[in-house]
């Protein structure tokens, strides 16, 4: 029974396929999996948007949407219909072809990343050796779509937003990759399935997740910072800073194309949360051995939605960074720490079992964090804000 609940989607797919002739079974099976991905994640996107608007409302002492349906739960549906029926405006001087291609390219690329994520036991669409490399390669090409959108609009705000976005994404892609490399080093494989399998073991009922090691925790925190910046989320949302750039690279987009950008952003966030879950939080494995009866896909989607809540929480809490702070943070603080973390991970591997490696690795990381933080803060003059008025 437990086994059936765990494998319900796999069994369902096989049952549906079994009605077809043999030569058609494999392609239809793949098609079904793709359709499942394309249906599930936009649904999660709708839930996340509602959660975000409600949650942000709560944090800012207001109600949030509460008019459409009970407690406003049909708000995403209303938004979807609204953006479908709105006029699609293309500026006269815009480059029409590129302007049209940018959102389409973004959505296609963003969905491709899901192909390698293990969403449950036996629930990986393509189980390839170099899955992680595939994910990062696909993630890198979203930058091009952002640039296409900003450039083709022929609007200075759009172009500035796109330049900011691309510069930020390139800068934070390096820490993102480097923090994941630590996991690859310890697992000895680039396959997400293998990475989850290694973490899916228990000692005294507790899991072997990478986040429960000093280097894993450090890599996870750095990964979170880089992932937030990579998805252009607050506090790293300079590319769409409303007070400076209207809406950044999608200023000139309206109607359904705007909705596609919105979808792309959130589906990208869900994908990177899924990757973080796979790398550090044990993917589909249960947090305690006694909870193993809960279906594995519940754990994966639960962990992903938890990360989305953290994203929303951060957005409601932190103020936006300045451009120079953003770049200094990436190159002078996050990148050196990720490089050091690689060395610490190697040390962890070669010190063997025992309590000593816990002490040494934690001490090195804490020391580096403190010293670099202090050095970075020394040049800054932190004082009460002074105001200057026009005379």
């Amino acid at each position, binding site marked *: 029974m437990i086994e059936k609940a765990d494998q319900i989607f796999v069994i369902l797919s096989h049952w549906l396929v079994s009605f077809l002739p043999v030569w058609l079974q494999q392609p239809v099976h793949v098609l079904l999996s793709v359709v499942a991905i394309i249906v599930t994640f936009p649904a999660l996107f709708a839930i996340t948007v509602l959660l975000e608007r409600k949650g942000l409302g709560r944090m800012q002492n207001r109600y949030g949407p509460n008019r459409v349906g009970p407690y406003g739960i049909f708000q995403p549906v209303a938004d979807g219909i609204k953006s479908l029926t709105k006029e699609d405006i293309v500026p006269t001087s815009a480059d029409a072809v590129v302007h049209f291609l940018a959102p389409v390219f973004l959505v296609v690329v963003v969905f491709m990343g899901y192909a390698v994520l293990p969403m449950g036991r036996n629930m990986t669409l393509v189980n390839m050796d170099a899955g992680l490399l595939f994910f*990062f*390669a696909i993630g890198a090409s979203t*930058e091009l779509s952002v640039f296409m959108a900003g450039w083709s609009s022929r609007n200075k705000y759009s172009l500035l937003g796109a330049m900011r976005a691309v510069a930020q994404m390139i800068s934070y892609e390096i820490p993102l990759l480097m923090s994941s490399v630590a996991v690859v080093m310890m697992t000895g494989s*680039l396959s997400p399935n293998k990475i989850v399998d290694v973490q899916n073991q228990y000692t005294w009922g507790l899991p072997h997740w990478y986040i429960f090691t000093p280097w894993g925790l450090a890599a996870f925190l750095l990964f979170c910072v880089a992932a937030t910046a990579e998805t252009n989320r607050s506090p790293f949302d300079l590319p769409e800073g409303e007070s400076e750039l209207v809406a950044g690279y999608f200023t000139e987009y309206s109607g359904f194309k705007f909705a596609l950008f919105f979808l792309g952003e959130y589906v990208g966030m869900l994908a990177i949360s899924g990757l973080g879950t796979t790398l550090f939080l044990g993917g589909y494995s249960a947090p305690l051995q006694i909870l193993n009866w809960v279906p594995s896909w519940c754990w994966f989607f639960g962990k992903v939605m938890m990360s989305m809540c953290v994203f929303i929480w951060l957005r409601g809490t932190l103020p936006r960074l300045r451009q120079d702070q953003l770049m200094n943070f990436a190159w002078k603080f996050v990148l050196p720490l990720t490089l050091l973390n690689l060395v610490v991970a190697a040390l962890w591997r070669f010190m063997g079992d025992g309590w000593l490696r816990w002490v040494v690795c934690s001490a090195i990381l804490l020391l580096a964090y403190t010293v670099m933080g202090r050095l970075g803060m020394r040049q800054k003059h932190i004082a009460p804000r002074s105001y200057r008025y026009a005379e």
Partner: protein
Amino acid sequence: MSIVFYVLAGLTVAGALAAVALKNTVHCALALTVAFAGLALLFLELDAQFAGFAQILIYIGAVAILVVFAILLTRGSETPKDTVYSNKWLLGLVTAAAVFAVLGWAVLHSTEALPHETAKPAVTVMDIGNALMGRYVLPLEIVALLLTAALIGAVIVAMHEKEGAR
């Protein structure tokens, strides 16, 4: 030679031709990206996963963006009024044809140089990693050192210019 090969080859060649023939420089850069993507897919079709993904990661994720930045930050982004063809196009054509002929000749004769390679080589990402970290670790380190030096040099050049401007 399957039908997939012909589709991908057509895509790559069309992208490359468009990159040369289009007027707007940014369009050329985007067409070049299509050619890069076609090449990456060709690598994947040949079961070379690492080469294919590295091609996407480096050429589409970094080189294309670099090209586009270079176009926008210089004055090349304006569309020229008259023709884009240089008046030395014949010389260029001859050079390109010569290079293509040499490469083609080398590829066609590669079977004679290695007559005993009948089995299809199976190269996984793991094998490439082992080779890079084992047998070829010295060249790898030399390349890494060279790239670091280039990076630092670029930063120093940029910093120097900024001080001079002040």
